[in-house]
């Protein structure tokens, strides 16, 4: 027999559990959960507040952080979706997670949201990206809200001081690089660690050499040889970069250890946040040095998607329509570069001269150097194959011939 005190405590515990459960159900039932990367939480909240989303639609939104690392995020979503649940009603998805989820049939078709007129706002380059990276079997599974181009940054002050011109080709980069490299500073660098870093630089150069890294063809060979030569023959690229991510390389740049590098657009904000270091005369942005075939730089993007296990699909569609409409897109881009893309409505309304990122995006777009990211339907595993073999070659574990041979075999096994 339970004593009276124990009975009271037990009742209290049961009631508390019930209350918490009811709260959770009510909370879950009323609010639209939007999962974005940690860096995008505040811009998204600000956008919703300033554009009065809830007043206009009657939908309450909770903006929450989703795991930033793709493997962690994909694992979280896989277990949820297979269990018929989802932690988010709307997700801000990067390229590789989007490709994975779309092939699994886990994302809602967004085409019904938009009419044909909506797409007139998009540039041909953006439409090409939408077709390759955001459609599967005719359905639009993600709608991009930005256009993350990689830029070529250089130390304007140092080049001027040494009387050097910004390199226009790979060969010139090596020549200029030899002049720039000192005991304190390397001419060129990039994040070459495994795990989503080295693959970006290798793909970037392979595209400039006229190919797709996943083919394991001559273009990949040429790009790997070029990086290897920069590190070991010309010694203008630090071998320590082989274990660095983008943040570490950015840090090197603002600590005067690197003179030129390719980087994603978030580096604009990063360098400007180094108030003691940054000045407009210090950092320049030029078009990428031309490789054997082109001076292209590929674009990545983040975009909105709805998991088909969400129980608020209609509200989620309203959210996405609101965030991507021709009226709101320019307002969002003015608030944060996270929502910046070369959509006509945005470029017309935004003051390009006021924003370094916007002006450089326009410069790159006008020069026609922005192209689609090299695609593979099993992007994640294919990228890992490229990364692992490139890393093995650049750390002198295997020859270039072995890279090509093993790469072709592994890609063939992946296709079977």
């Amino acid at each position, binding site marked *: 027999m339970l004593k009276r005190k124990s009975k009271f405590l037990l009742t209290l515990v049961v009631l508390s559990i019930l209350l918490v459960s009811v709260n959770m159900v009510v909370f879950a039932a009323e609010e639209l959960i939007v999962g974005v990367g940690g860096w995008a939480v505040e811009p998204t909240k600000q956008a919703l507040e300033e554009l009065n989303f809830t007043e206009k639609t009657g939908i309450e939104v909770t903006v929450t952080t989703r795991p930033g690392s793709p493997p962690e995020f994909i694992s979280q979503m896989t277990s949820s979706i297979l269990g018929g649940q989802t932690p988010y009603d709307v997700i801000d998805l990067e390229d590789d997670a989007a490709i*994975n989820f779309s092939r699994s049939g886990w994302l809602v078709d967004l085409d019904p949201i938009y009419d044909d007129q909506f797409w007139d706002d998009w540039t041909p380059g953006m439409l090409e990206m939408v077709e390759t990276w955001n459609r599967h079997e005719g359905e639009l599974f993600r709608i991009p809200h930005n256009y993350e181009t990689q830029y070529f940054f250089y130390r304007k002050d140092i080049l001027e001081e040494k009387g050097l011109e910004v390199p226009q080709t790979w060969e010139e980069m090596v020549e200029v690089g030899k002049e720039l490299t000192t005991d304190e500073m390397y001419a060129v660098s990039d994040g070459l660690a495994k795990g989503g870093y080295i693959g970006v630089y290798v793909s970037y150069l392979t595209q400039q050499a006229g190919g797709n890294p996943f083919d394991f063809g001559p273009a990949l060979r040429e790009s790997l040889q070029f990086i290897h030569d920069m590190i070991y023959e010309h010694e203008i690229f630090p071998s320590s970069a082989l274990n660095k991510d983008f943040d570490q390389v950015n840090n090197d740049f603002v600590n005067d250890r690197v003179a030129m590098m390719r980087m994603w657009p978030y580096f604009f904000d990063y360098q400007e946040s180094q108030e003691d270091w940054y000045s407009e005369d210090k950092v320049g942005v030029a078009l990428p040095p031309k490789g054997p075939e082109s001076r292209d730089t590929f674009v990545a993007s983040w975009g909105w998607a709805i998991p088909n296990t969400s129980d608020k699909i209609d509200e989620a569609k309203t959210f996405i329509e609101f965030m991507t409409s021709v009226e709101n897109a320019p307002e969002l881009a003015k608030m944060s570069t996270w929502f910046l893309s070369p959509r006509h409505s945005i470029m017309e309304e935004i003051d390009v001269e006021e924003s370094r990122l916007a002006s450089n995006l326009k410069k790159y777009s006008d020069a026609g150097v922005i192209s689609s990211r090299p695609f593979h339907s099993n992007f994640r595993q294919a990228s890992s194959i490229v990364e692992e073999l490139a890393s093995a070659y650049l*750390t002198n574990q295997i020859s270039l011939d072995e890279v090509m041979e093993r790469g072709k075999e592994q890609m063939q096994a992946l296709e079977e």
Partner: protein
Amino acid sequence: MFSNYSKLKKYLIFAILVGPAVLLRFSTSFYPIVRTIYLSFFKHNLMEQVHRYVGLNNFTALLNDQTIVDVIGFTLVFISVSVILQLILGMAIANLLNTEFKGRKIVRTLNLLPWVIPVIVSGYVFRWMLNADYGLITDWIFRLSGKEVQLLINSFYARVSLILVNVWRNTPFMAIVLLAGLQSIPDELYEAAKIDGASWFQRFLHITLPASSSTIVTLGLFNIIWQIANIDIILGLTQGGPGSATTVIAFRIYQLGMQWFSWGSASALSVYLLLIVAVISLIALYLYRRFEFSS
């Protein structure tokens, strides 16, 4: 009738008592193993929504992949060197901690510190300490030798670094278990040996080592099995690189299964690993019985 009822009751109680344990083992061990073996004969990719019977293709494809062969090779090196070093250093530390000195209790507690730090944290901390540009350890090496070494970029140094960090992390636990074994050896044996004029080394060789043999064998074999499943230190320290230089089988299974969702290939590699563990376990059982009886 009465007897039948009594028997039935007995069986019912037996079923109630044993049932949960059997159910637990069935759902957490038997079913996953059978399911893994079943999946190893299929191309089963969660992301591509593919489930196709491919016979032994997953097994042959793995063995035809030079990277996997290298991974298996390094796994054997990683496990054997780690276990041997952990046992040798563990025994040395256990002997030190078994001697009488002031502050022994504090030293015994301090000894356990590396082991209580979460493995993934140790991995990340050493990743910074071994960093070519900012690392504390690389800086020490530079100050001592004047050479700039890139410990996590050179494949040989990366492997050595991984093994040493792993040894640093696990040795304290080995030491504590071995210490428990040492404490059970009667002091009279040492005293008698001393009277007979045996040196420290002779006492160690003829008393300590034989008396600890069953602990060493048991610990060594368990440690081998633990090391086989060791991926978190790799995840934190090297991510399996440079290239695949520090990738072990368990880490590759994690990549295949949890990063690339290629569950067919991951299952086939798991079956290979299962066979390796099974062989080691059989050897373990044999040695355990042998040393248990002899000691």
